[in-house]
């Protein structure tokens, strides 16, 4: 049913939900209240539709970061079967902020790689809030090469506020880890499909984001820096984040116009977090049709197409 975390622009929804909750409790002894609950229920849906058909860019920033928004592990669970998680970069360690492994979608074997922010305090800390260290990108790189070797399509799920800015990351070559993934993905001899599911933050997102087909969920965002970082760099005040979000044109609708992405996946009313089943079905359908389409293109042609796609941005 209704998930209990409301964003600041969802206040009217929270009020209705509170009323419903209160009535639910007393309705056990007063069945005549049922009709009132139903009425509130449809009012809730109406208001949700209205609010969500009129979102500004900052609202979408908040939705993309919603604590109950489905993450990579949710998509793996709801879309794929027989997932074998593969760990480690074989050099330094295993970074839990990136999940990767083999799985099947409709009997088609694929390689999945995605950022994972985690849910609940313990898991979030363990996964470093989805902010990878270099070894995360190097694990991804290892799995990508494996996918090339076994001719598996790669599906990446992008959802990070950015690569982790820390001392160890700098010591172990965060820049190199990202750069070499960009270089590798530009020529990797297998099909690569990217789904930006939540926050597409900067180079740390792009390091899983180079490929043949880029889709974004309707309320996901993708930008060169977080609105807060952009605000402090350009406006010299992180309080201008809302303005920065507007200026950066970071929504799926903006980016399809700018030819940065190819497809927008529709979210259920009220956002992906309100219905995991529906969003998973939509993502699944998109993936299946894209795998089929990309399989029709001979590999050599696909790589030419990818190079052109990359070099034509901003021409």
């Amino acid at each position, binding site marked *: 049913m209704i998930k209990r975390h409301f964003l600041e622009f969802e206040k009217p929804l929270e009020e209705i939900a509170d009323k419903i909750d209160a009535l639910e409790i007393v309705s056990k002894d007063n069945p005549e209240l049922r009709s009132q609950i139903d009425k509130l229920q449809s009012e809730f849906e109406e208001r949700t539709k209205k609010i969500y058909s009129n979102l500004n860019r900052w609202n979408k920033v908040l939705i993309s970061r919603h604590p109950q928004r489905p993450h990579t592990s949710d998509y793996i669970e709801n879309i794929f079967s027989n997932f074998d998680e593969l760990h480690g970069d074989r050099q330094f360690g295993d970074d839990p902020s990136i999940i990767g492994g083999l799985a099947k979608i409709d009997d088609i074997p694929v390689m999945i790689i995605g950022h994972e922010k985690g849910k609940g305090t313990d898991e979030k800390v363990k996964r470093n809030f989805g902010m990878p260290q270099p070894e995360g990108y190097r694990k991804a790189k290892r799995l990508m090469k494996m996918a090339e070797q076994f001719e598996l399509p790669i599906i990446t799920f992008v959802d990070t506020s950015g690569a982790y800015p820390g*001392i160890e990351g700098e010591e172990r070559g*965060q*820049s190199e880890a990202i750069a070499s993934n960009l270089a590798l993905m530009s020529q990797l001899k297998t099909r690569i499909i990217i789904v930006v599911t939540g926050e597409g933050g*900067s180079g740390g997102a792009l390091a899983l984001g180079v490929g043949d087909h880029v889709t974004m969920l309707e309320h996901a965002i993708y930008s060169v820096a977080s609105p807060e970082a952009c605000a402090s760099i350009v406006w010299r005040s992180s309080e201008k984040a809302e303005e920065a979000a507007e200026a*950066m044109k970071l929504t799926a609708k903006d980016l399809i116009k700018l030819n*940065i992405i190819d497809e927008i996946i529709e979210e259920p009313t009220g956002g992906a977090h309100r219905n995991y089943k529906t969003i998973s079905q939509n993502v699944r359908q998109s993936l299946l049709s894209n795998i089929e389409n990309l399989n029709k293109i001979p590999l050599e042609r696909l790589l030419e197409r990818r190079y052109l796609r990359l070099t034509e941005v901003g021409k």
Partner: protein
Amino acid sequence: MNWLTRLIPSIGKSSSKSKSKIPDGVWTSCPSCESALYQPELQKTLYVCPKCDHHLRIGARTRFNIFFDNGNFTEIASNVETGDPLGFKDVKAYPVRIKEAKKNTGESEALLVGFGKLDGRLVTAAAFEFKFMGGSMGSVVGEKFVQGIEQAIESKTPFICFSTSGGARMQESMVSLMQMAKTSAAIQKLKSNKLPYISVMVDPIFGGVSASLAMLGDINIAEPKAFVGFAGRRVIEQTVRVELPEDFQKSEFLLEHGAIDMIVHRSEIRSKIIGILDKISK
């Protein structure tokens, strides 16, 4: 150091032509040791402080004048114009910022690309202009870089890039971010053509340029004490809440941690690259 004396006239010539260098006054002070430095003297030392060896920041054109034989090069991709894909406006509109940067630097964008001879061997090179919006990489920088690489592939020449940049340009957001992928793809193409890419890291390089073209050299060279990293010092300090050691993210730190092949003094970069190309370039 014969080539150095040969170069002095051309260095002098270019600094009168372009404003992208040290301020026009005859005296300036070293940003590191604060010694008073005499301009004509600095030209001879390639803008390295004679007192403390600090490598002062230099413009892209000065860099090319030092680098190419007799400072001669043919500029390529000079006509790529900066657009405003997002209609970006902060306190100033993006096109106004571009106009100001053009006026202040005498350059059309933050990257200069040229084709010329290095010790008689044809090479293609690129150099960032840090004074043009902090050397930030937007669509024009990416496009010029790629045209430089395409030229290198066509003419079968090595490619050398002198990077100095604050990162991807905010005002073009995703269009800027994608330049990281664009330049990396082109470098990869150069490499599949078995042509060398030498990356020279010059103070400072951060963010999107560090995490793409600057780190991808077959050989990565840095000038002494250049700051190079993914995240800026302040961001890291705010995140991890410890004070960072002074040499953190300096060339010496990078060498120690395996990110670069060597640290080379500005006066020896030319001869070092000539010597390397002699071994890896046909």
